[in-house]
């Protein structure tokens, strides 16, 4: 009661102070709700109809068959190299090397991707554009870092620690049982400290993703302006039957 009295007394004062021309209002109450968009809500028919032609065209393209895959490929099959990882790294090598050669005069020497970047399995049967989207849903582009022989040694140290089947191509690595690297060769030759090498990777890894810090200070960088997914789609398009297998590119004794 006391409180109300006070307010009544104050009211005219406040109104006169604030002035009526401003006519501002005060928030008296706020309520909120987070509404789940679920199957209990019936889809708006007009919107649904509007989406349909886009959806139809999209699905027709996504589901068009590009190639045939005889066996299921999974990133969990294999120790330090997997059939699916080898496929992806080899595709980057084959598809991006001509692009980089045009721009720099040199071919790609090696490819390094990350195991975590293999986002799905490749089921046996028909391979479609959708398969490429599943495998590589991100927009990552291929970049080529020119690294010194010394920086490549850093890369090998990284791989020793990672003990992971990060996809590689163009380099052959032999490790002992404890992942310690015994031998690494590029086109049959040992890594030369005084040479530089063209290492293709994704812009994500190049920019420090997965702590691949050996990319931090390259001699040169060349952008391929080529998405990894598009490289996969282009490869699938020109391939009839996918031949991917585990091999001896990165092994332990």
């Amino acid at each position: 009661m006391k409180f109300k009295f006070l307010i009544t007394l104050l009211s005219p004062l406040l109104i006169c102070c604030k002035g009526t021309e401003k006519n501002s209002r005060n928030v008296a109450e706020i309520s909120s709700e987070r509404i789940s968009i679920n199957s209990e809500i019936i889809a708006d028919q007009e919107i649904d109809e509007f989406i349909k032609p886009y959806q139809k065209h999209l699905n027709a393209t996504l589901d068009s068959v590009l190639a045939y895959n005889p066996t299921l490929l999974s990133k969990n099959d294999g120790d330090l190299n997997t059939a699916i990882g080898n496929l992806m790294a080899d595709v980057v090598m084959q598809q991006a090397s001509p692009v980089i050669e045009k721009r720099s005069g040199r071919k790609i020497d090696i490819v390094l991707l990350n195991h975590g970047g293999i986002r799905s399995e490749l089921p046996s049967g028909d391979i479609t554009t959708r398969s490429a989207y599943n495998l590589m849903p991100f927009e990552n582009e291929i970049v080529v870092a020119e690294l010194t022989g010394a920086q490549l040694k850093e890369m090998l140290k990284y791989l020793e620690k990672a003990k992971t089947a990060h996809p590689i191509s163009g380099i052959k690595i032999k490790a002992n049982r404890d992942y310690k690297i015994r031998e690494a060769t590029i086109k049959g030759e040992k890594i030369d400290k005084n040479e530089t090498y063209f290492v293709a990777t994704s812009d994500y890894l190049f920019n420090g993703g997965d702590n691949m810090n050996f990319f931090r200070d390259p001699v040169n960088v060349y952008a391929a302006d080529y998405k990894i997914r598009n490289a996969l789609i282009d490869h699938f398009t020109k391939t009839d039957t996918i031949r991917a297998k585990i091999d001896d590119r990165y092994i332990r004794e």
Partner: protein
Amino acid sequence: MKRKDFIQNTAVATAFLGLGGLSTLSFKPETRRHITILHTNDVHSHIEPFGPEEGRNAGLGGVARRATLIEKIRQENPNTLLLDAGDIFQGTPYFNFYGGELEFKLMSKLKYDAATIGNHDFDNGIDGLYAQLPHADFDFIISNYDFKNTIMDGQTKDYRVFHKDGIKIGVFGLGIELQGLVNDKLYKETKYLDPVEMATEIGAKLKNEENCDLVICLSHLGYQYKGDKISDIKLARATSNIDLIIGGHTHTFLERPTVETNKKGNKVLVNQVGCYGLYLGRVDFFLDENKNIEADGVKIAID
């Protein structure tokens, strides 16, 4: 289903109850105005609902369902604003195929009032964003990107004032720092300006010069970070005139808005509804003509 929790500090609670009782005696009930704010963020080209086998999001989302829901709420309260906090693009092949055309067309059909720009909205380059603008019948509001030397110059607004039922609602936008997050080839010469400075300047303008009753910040800064990086929570504390921050970027699923205290000691709500159009956020403001309710007397009821 409609259980309400009331969040408030106790001193304020008493004050509110006192005033509430008074206002029913002294004022006509129709003087109370009701504004509904609906919001999404980080929808990332999710047009269709998730399929039945798509993990924890299975069966959720979908623009056509969102349309039904929004329409129903608009029928209940025509004084509704529909806002998006950025990252409209990128995440499904719809974006890769149509470059964002369908996203903008659908948002126009759903009658979005405004959106801010997220980092992924540059994924087809600033030219790719510009190319889709003709498909958007709503405003892009962002105050801390200086587009002067880009093709986007003149295409966005720092802020906008919406009039609903005699209530002035000021909406301004803030974007995240693009350097290091987006390839500079994509955003070109877009200059990032300090978000706290812009929010201070525009917040004051909206409250004091435009006489807005409500000030809403559409932010793509992100909810909260461990380090010094500016976030919605930091922004709420460091500024004075914002009533509600609708956030994005961090894909933070808030069940209810976080209540922060601003520089002047007033309450600020910070909300974000995760991503992919799985949820629609809703905040209802009830405004009284009773001028002696102090800002502290805000009663925050959360469903």
